[in-house]
């Protein structure tokens, strides 16, 4: 007889009746408040359902309960007063809803509370010290007036808040109250509850809280601080909110996790959760699983608000800048490297452990590592498919390659369709040897006059990439060497990019790649310069055109 229940019900009356029955049959007196919005027929059915327990289950006067409004507090006060009037000797009163269920035998809760007489369990945190708030309203819940329903009159609600802010209207708190917030579901000692109900200043407090926003999370939480002797600021009910501020719903498959959490009461139980209801009716203990339920809720929140980095799919297509990590992990692009060295691919792969592809964005072909026709995830080496959605092609390559660093080669112009994304991606490591395209032109052996247009095109494309990589908003880690720098210290770019790709890797010099400097490079560069298309991205032209190889020629 020392634990009494205040039960608020508003829908799923069949389940609410079962919950009331579970409490009552365990020996707890129950006062049920039914939302006045429920038609009388529902009320009569609920009363009929519980008629055999009329010595222990009472129904109190009904109030209309709008979400976020005073009605819920009025209902709670009404039911609590009824409970204390009829059963003045109770040690604790527990506030539950029709969708709450005891997940451990009620006797355990009764014993737990009997061992802690006078102790109040109510989550109650000073408003100023916690950042919980939906809609940016925390302290303002107490200093503004909220005469409109948030659910039914949202525009009026928002306009009224804006107006009060604009005019600087504030209401002052009743003397001696310090606003506190916390979960709605409490378990208060009979003494504290009676003191709250019998407070001589209660009309003043009620008048004030009538216009507070979501008073069910602040009325008892604030007043308990005024009257409680010993208070544990936690709720005995496991009830969590999702990222949208809606209560998480609990299903049969949560049973092991709920049992592992060890809570006495949980909400909000899905009405179809037959196993949870059956276990509670039978007073059975659920078999605990390895994990409590909190990590599952935390993971759901993270998934809903941040998502998995680098994933684009039917439920997630972030706007640029909202990716929370544009790629699933670091990846590398190497431009010009394949022109400068021979046999470097094997060395690079060995040194870094990365999967090194050829030119994935070459015009008219896709060069997956090993010449594969289909890559992971059945990504086809089809240039038409790649060009259909180049960003997704690159995104798929990285997503499918999770767990291995992906690296690929590029030539000037290749990256144009993904350039902005590449530059904005903090996971991208980009190595460019600017002007390396001249090596390929020199190898072709054709005269400079014939190559001039091609050289200009390549240089323009490369300049665009470098500009994107050097833009102030660029976040890719770019390392850029000119051709003359790379020729002067040929292993430096390879070592640097190996280290960028696999931090901590110690590439050896064994089987080091060979520099592939074609005959006639200097001649070609000088000729281009003299024709009026200076290959300025190649770096120090004087050094490159120096008569070193000319003399030998």
């Amino acid at each position, binding site marked *: 007889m020392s634990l009494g229940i205040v039960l608020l019900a508003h829908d799923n009356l069949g389940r609410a009746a079962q919950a009331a029955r579970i409490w009552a049959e365990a020996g707890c007196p129950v006062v049920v408040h039914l939302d006045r919005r429920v038609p009388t027929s529902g009320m009569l059915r609920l009363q009929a359902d519980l008629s055999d327990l009329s010595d222990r289950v009472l129904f109190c006067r009904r109030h209309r309960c709008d979400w976020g409004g005073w009605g819920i507090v009025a209902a709670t006060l009404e039911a609590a007063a009824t409970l204390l009037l009829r059963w003045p000797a109770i040690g604790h009163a527990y506030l539950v809803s029709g969708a709450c269920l005891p997940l451990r035998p009620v006797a355990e809760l009764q014993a737990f509370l009997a061992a802690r007489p006078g102790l109040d369990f109510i989550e109650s945190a000073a408003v100023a010290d916690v950042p919980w708030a939906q809609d940016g309203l925390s302290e303002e819940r107490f200093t503004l007036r909220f005469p409109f329903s948030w659910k039914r009159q949202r525009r009026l609600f928002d306009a009224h808040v804006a107006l009060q802010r604009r005019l600087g209207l504030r209401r002052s708190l009743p003397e001696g109250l310090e606003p506190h917030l916390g979960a709605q579901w409490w378990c208060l000692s009979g003494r504290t509850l009676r003191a709250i109900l019998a407070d001589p200043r209660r009309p003043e407090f009620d008048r004030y809280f009538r216009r507070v926003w979501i008073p069910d999370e602040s009325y008892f939480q604030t007043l308990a601080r005024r009257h409680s002797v010993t208070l544990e600021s936690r709720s005995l009910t496991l009830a969590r909110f999702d990222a949208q501020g809606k209560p998480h719903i609990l299903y049969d498959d949560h049973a092991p996790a709920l049992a592992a959490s060890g809570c006495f009461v949980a909400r909000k139980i899905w009405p179809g959760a037959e196993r949870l209801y059956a276990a509670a009716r039978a007073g059975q203990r659920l078999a605990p699983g390895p994990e409590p339920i909190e990590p599952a809720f935390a993971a759901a929140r993270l998934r809903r608000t941040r998502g998995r980095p680098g994933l684009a799919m*039917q439920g997630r297509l972030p706007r640029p800048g909202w990716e929370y990590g544009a790629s699933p992990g670091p990846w590398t692009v190497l431009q010009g490297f394949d022109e400068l060295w021979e046999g470097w691919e094997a060395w690079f792969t060995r040194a870094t452990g990365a999967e090194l592809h050829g030119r994935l964005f070459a015009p008219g072909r896709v060069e997956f590592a090993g010449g594969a026709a289909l890559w992971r995830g*059945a990504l086809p080496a089809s240039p038409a498919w790649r060009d*259909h959605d180049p960003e997704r092609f690159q995104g798929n390559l990285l997503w499918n390659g999770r767990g291995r660093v992906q690296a690929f080669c590029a030539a000037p112009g290749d990256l144009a369709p993904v350039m902005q994304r590449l530059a904005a991606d903090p996971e991208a490591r980009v190595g460019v040897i600017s002007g390396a395209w001249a090596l390929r032109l020199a190898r072709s052996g054709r005269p400079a006059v014939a190559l001039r247009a091609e050289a200009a095109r390549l240089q323009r494309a490369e300049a665009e990439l470098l500009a994107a990589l050097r833009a102030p908003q660029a976040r890719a880690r770019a390392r850029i060497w000119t051709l003359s720098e790379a020729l002067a210290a040929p292993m430096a770019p390879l070592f640097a990019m190996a280290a960028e790709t696999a931090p901590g890797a110690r590439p050896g010099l064994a089987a080091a790649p060979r520099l592939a400097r074609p005959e006639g490079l200097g001649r070609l560069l000088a000729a281009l310069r003299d024709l009026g298309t200076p290959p300025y991205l190649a770096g120090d032209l004087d050094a490159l055109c120096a008569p070193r190889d000319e003399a030998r020629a």
Partner: protein
Amino acid sequence: MQPWQRYRLRLERKRWRLRALRKRRELEPVADRTAGIVPRDALVFSTFRNEMPRLAEFLAHYRDMGVGHFLMVDNGSDDGGGAYLAAQPDVSLWRTEASYKRARFGTDWLNGLARRHGHGHWCLTVDPDELFVYPFHDSRPLRALTDWLDASGLRSFPAMLLDLYPKGALGTDGAAPDPEGRWFDAGNYAISRNPVYGNLWIQGGPRARLFFSDRPERAPALNKIPLVRWHRAYAYVSSTHMLLPRGLNRTYDEWGGEKACGVLLHTKLMSGFPEKAREELERRQHFAASAEYRAYAEGLEEGREPWCAQSERYEGWRQLEELGLMSRGGWA
């Protein structure tokens, strides 16, 4: 979006709704058990032609998840599927010999039926070769999902089409069902937004890579929004790829998070595909003079097979979520 664009979409929606009313007259009731629909039933809407080998699995799959009633349109089947369905206690059946193409590939018929019978219900519009899979479907009935959607204020739920295929040659109709398992492509999908209707446009998978690798823009669309809390004012625009009003198409998150979504397991390639492709090519009742089916016929003649070393074997929804094809979103 400009007011005139919004108004244009409103007119378009009205047009599809009127058209649905007109096309509904082509449907002749065979077994009308719609009086047995109770207020909170989830309903399945489907149109089919000669799908007898799939119907039993189809009904079982959706009955298992707790669908209350099936509203089916038989477009001139001659394989006994109509009689089979007419005998089912939870199926209402209509029959029509009218043109599938002129009913915009069945969309008008189903819009018409949903308008009359779907209002206020959660309606699942799927083909007989589409098996809906949603997060936790192995432990929670469909009602758990729709209750959660209601509580979260969501009116529509997306599920992209995921083509399943056998290991080996296509076209083993009548062979034992999936002896080597059902396989799919995990990561070759292209995604973009449709600026007018606000839906995503998703392409890829085995059909894109086998039959459309040189004409990707022609590859079939895989984005679908099959589950909708129907209102009589709604209309599907083209198949179940998109709806009007277009707010129903905003089923994806643009600010980094993941919204909950499911998958439609597409068993079209699993069995009987070559026969079906040939038949549909002859009937010319599909989009763009059945160009899709022409491509299939060509590819099949060359003996192309979808299975490859990179294929994934279907194991369940958690695998699909891990691979990034679907998500629980905020549902825990």
